[in-house]
């Protein structure tokens, strides 16, 4: 398919970083191969002529305004909001500092 290129080690590393997962050298090798196989299969799509075809983002194309009224609803109790928090203080979530 146009505009695509074979997946290399650097690409896998870049994508893993974007997706926030660490990969070992061995994993990079495995994923590189597997992703390449999958992409090669996927490249089949290049054969389909879609010049005059509009994309489908939703299968059931009944376009209809889907709105809610601007009405306030009850929020969750703060205890429920924080119940699953790995770390918290008072009513706040605690996360590690951004850079460091």
């Amino acid at each position, binding site marked *: 398919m146009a505009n695509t290129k074979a997946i290399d080690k650097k690409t896998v590393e870049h994508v893993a970083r974007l997706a926030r997962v660490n990969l070992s050298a061995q994993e990079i090798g495995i994923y590189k191969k597997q992703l390449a196989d999958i992409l090669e299969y996927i490249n089949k799509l290049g054969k389909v002529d879609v010049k005059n075809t509009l994309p489908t*983002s939703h299968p059931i194309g009944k376009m209809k305004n889907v709105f*809610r009224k601007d009405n306030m609803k009850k929020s969750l109790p*703060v205890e429920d909001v924080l119940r699953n928090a790995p770390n918290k203080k008072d009513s706040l*979530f605690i996360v590690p500092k951004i*850079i460091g």
Partner: protein
Amino acid sequence: MKNYEVVIGLEAHVHLLTESKAFCGCSTKFGLEPNSSTCPVCLGLPGSLPVLNEKAFLYAIKTALALHCKIQNLIKFDRKNYYYPDLPKNYQISQYDMPLAYDGVIEIESQESKKKIRVKRVHLEEDAGKLMHEAEKGVSYVDFNRAGVALLEIVSEPDIHSPEDASAYLVNLKAILKYLKVSDCNMEEGSLRCDANISVRPEGAKALGVKAELKNMNSFKAVRDALSYEAKRQIDLLAAGEKIQQETRLWNEARGLTIAMRSKEDTQDYRYFPEPDLVPFTVDKNKIDQIMRSLPELPQAKKKRFISDYSVSEYDARVLTREADVSDFFEATIKTYNNPKEIANWLLGDIASLLNARKVSIAKTKLKPGHLAEMLEMIHSEEISGKIAKEVLPEVFENGLSPKEIVRQKGLKQIKDSGELTSIIELVIKENEKSTNDYKAGKKNALMFLVGQVMKKTKGKANPKILNNILKNMLGGK
């Protein structure tokens, strides 16, 4: 030395004045207990789904029409993917390649002339939560109350060429938004935020220079100061033969300079794609026409009308129309006291200072148009002096009593009775022999002193005209 042209584009983010958030029913109120205005949707809990707030959408369309934008036929939302702890889903629901409106314009008056600043795009998105950092402990605290509040992003073309024009653009934008009642534009609470792109180029050059993105400007003054600083910084660099880095810089208000943000480790790749949880929809043309027809008179039009209908000065008209509250107050007062010039003087003078000191808008005070009209009528009929009026005004602000009532309660009514005034003047003349003699000897200033003494004794209530006449007569002046 070469002359440089500054090129500025502004990106304003405005909280829309909806009761509930953009995609869920949580309150948008500011200052609540942290995380108390959150639900599975705005917390981005697994399984939750967004549903668009109709009012947020209508406000966005209203704003876009007031900015003379074209409205997109098909409205769709996209996901902007990036990791940040204030972004619960690690993507923001926004609009990418098809902003809901585009190609608008905002008029500004700069010193010399009127200018049109093109609006590139207007789009709807959700706000992020708030992070508070505690550097010593190496942690940040997250409050998601703001997460999901409807945010309108209004992006100008790089048509602005001075910090003053940038400020004028924002002032006008704010005026329009407040007229539309779609945002309170409170910069302190973050309901109006502004980033700027700024570059400089040698005068006459066609190509744009390398730009810096400025952030963290929390007032109009900060925008002006930051842009002035940054323009000078860039010009100095170029003049010294150096290159400008494309980077994000933060305005440091305390130190009065911009500082390069530590460059993010990652190259930005937002991986935009259509938000599959929201269905694209078309906007009914009739609905747009209906919103168009219901737009209120906007500041520019109102200003023109004030000049022609009320013969106020261009300057007065501009300031009066900057806020709908003030212009409404102005016109309501005229209905019962038909002297626009006097009303304008009070509104732009004493009343404006009182509002500034209290940091409130006129609609939120106890002062009503009827009060101002009544007070001006009392000055006009010489029941009180202008000076007394200045004392009465803050009282009205505080307790909402009518000026007549305050004057009655405090006994502030002017003393117009010649007999009463004559006896006071006699006393003053007696006590101030030197000044009396000075006046008689031709020192005109002495009269002012004596008038002052009478005013002191009457606590400012003496009718100045009558007082002057009696005093002059008694002193036998020339």
